[in-house]
């Protein structure tokens, strides 16, 4: 017999809402609502990425905008060469741009993974505040690099005129693009759930609590964390590519520390280390931005108040408050 915890039920309800809301918006002919939902789903994906480092690994990275931005620029660079009919590189061999989403995703994931490997290899030698500062510094480095890189719009960013394509689908139709993003989120959530219970997840989770113990059984916490950081960066990079495709626009803002901060804030609000924490957090974030952003330019203040309340009174975030402490597996 399968018994479901409150958290599992909550997660299923959340998935249902992510299907029903856009369906309603589609039937009611509210494309803007579909776009909002798409944005929430993409940010949730970025948050699921961060949560693997932050929640499972205990790695407080303030540099995840780097991967979000790299994913975005992978899309922007490939698509701009395709739309201008100019090759990306001619020597030593020809690389053309592309408008194919799957190819762009692959490039985005590989590039952000390599960046995470380099950044992680250096910053994971430190811990605590130093780790936060070093990841922040790497993010800022890339931010200033893109600002001063004229080839792809520099400070002004770069527009892509037509959304990239996916075989068999019309990506210009908001509901179809939403479907793509939702499917990717569901796939990654499934992977993240497996990961958390896998041998790797068990060891990573233990390394967060007591690195000494993990070393003493013959496992290197550094290797666990570096692997988690790379997986985390790859997922956030994929989200960056989708985000760029949603807006058909990339700019250095994707690399800014505010982007890192926002992802971290909504993950904390939703529930760190909870599978659906980033999903709930992203939905709340987008809802607040939509509802309060119209009333006041300073809506971030309300977000800050919510964050403060969560940190002070609800350690497990919104999910923790609604469903109680996580039940130990098995």
């Amino acid at each position, binding site marked *: 017999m399968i018994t479901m915890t409150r958290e599992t039920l909550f997660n299923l309800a959340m998935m249902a809402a992510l299907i029903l809301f856009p369906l309603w918006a589609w039937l009611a002919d509210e494309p803007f609502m579909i776009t909002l939902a798409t944005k929430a789903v993409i940010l949730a994906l970025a948050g699921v990425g961060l949560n693997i480092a932050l929640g499972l690994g205990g790695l407080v990275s303030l540099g995840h905008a780097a991967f979000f931005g790299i994913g975005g620029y992978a899309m922007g660079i490939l698509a701009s060469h395709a739309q201008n009919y100019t090759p990306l590189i001619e020597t030593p061999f020809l690389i053309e741009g592309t408008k194919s989403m799957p190819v762009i995703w692959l490039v985005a994931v590989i590039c952000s993974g390599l960046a995470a490997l380099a950044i992680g290899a250096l910053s994971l030698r430190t811990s605590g505040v130093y780790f936060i500062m070093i990841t922040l510094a790497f993010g800022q480095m890339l931010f200033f690099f893109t600002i001063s890189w004229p080839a792809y719009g520099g400070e002004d960013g770069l527009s892509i005129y037509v959304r990239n394509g996916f075989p068999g689908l019309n990506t210009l139709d908001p509901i179809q693009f939403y479907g793509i993003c939702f499917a990717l989120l569901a796939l990654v959530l499934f992977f993240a759930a497996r990961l958390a219970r896998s041998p790797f*997840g*068990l*060891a990573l989770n233990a390394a967060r*609590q*007591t690195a000494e113990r993990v070393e003493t*059984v013959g496992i290197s916490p550094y290797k666990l964390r570096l692997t988690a950081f790379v997986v985390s960066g790859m997922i956030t990079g994929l989200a960056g590519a989708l985000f760029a495709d949603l807006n058909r626009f990339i700019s250095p803002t994707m690399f800014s520390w505010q982007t890192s901060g926002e992802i971290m804030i909504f993950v904390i609000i939703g529930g760190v280390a909870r599978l659906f924490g980033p999903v709930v957090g992203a939905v709340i974030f987008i809802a607040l931005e939509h509802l309060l952003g119209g009333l006041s330019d300073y809506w971030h203040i309300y977000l800050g108040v919510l964050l403060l309340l969560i940190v002070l009174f609800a350690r497990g975030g919104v999910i923790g408050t609604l469903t109680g402490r996580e039940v130990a597996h098995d």
Partner: protein
Amino acid sequence: MTDPMMTDPVLETRGISKTFGALQASKDISLTLMPGEIHALIGPNGAGKSTLIKQIAGGLRPDAGQVFLQGREVTGLDTPARARLGLGRTFQISALAMEDTVLQNAVLGALGASGRPFRFWRAALGDKDLRARAQDALERVGLQEHAATRTAELSHGQRRQLEVAVALTLRPKAFVMDEPMAGLGTGGSLRLTGFLDGLRAEAPILLVEHDMDAVFALADRISVLVYGEVIATGTVEEIRANPDVRSAYLGDEA
């Protein structure tokens, strides 16, 4: 037991020295741990017992000297590498994943022993081999009924037992235990004493312990550490009769 002079030590330190600023925490320490024996390391608080354990297990580099495990020098290796070579260590202060269940902590040990922690797909607790190895260790220390309990909810004594169980999952070549009896109470100490007595047949134990009843009941040899220096090594009778030891350490207890 075989004659110590005839066989090679399982674990050996040669001339280990370590200073912290002006404090000499280890002074030219040379010890051996022979097959089948329990070698107790005693000494007053602050004598440098835990510091020596850390240098043997890999958490701390000695300033001078070497550590050998089964004849192989491991001085330059990090803690995980030494564990993989067969060093099973327990901590003076329990180092356990408190949010995880007892079983998960034991499975972590089994996972380390398997040498393949980088598996991302199948559930760790669904792995029959890992689980069997973990449950076997829990049964041996009497924690099998608490397998599903969160470690944070265990009593102090049960945490000490789990600490030993995790080391058992490694099936090490040598145990290094830092005050496993600490805070166990009389009943718990007696039970653990009985257990360690049998364990030495599987792998020898370097045992740091304050509980003198346990030490005198278990030790084949005792080394006495005072101010970072081994002032005597010998059998229980020799150590009890040693005047230096009596004045430096046992005097206030005897």
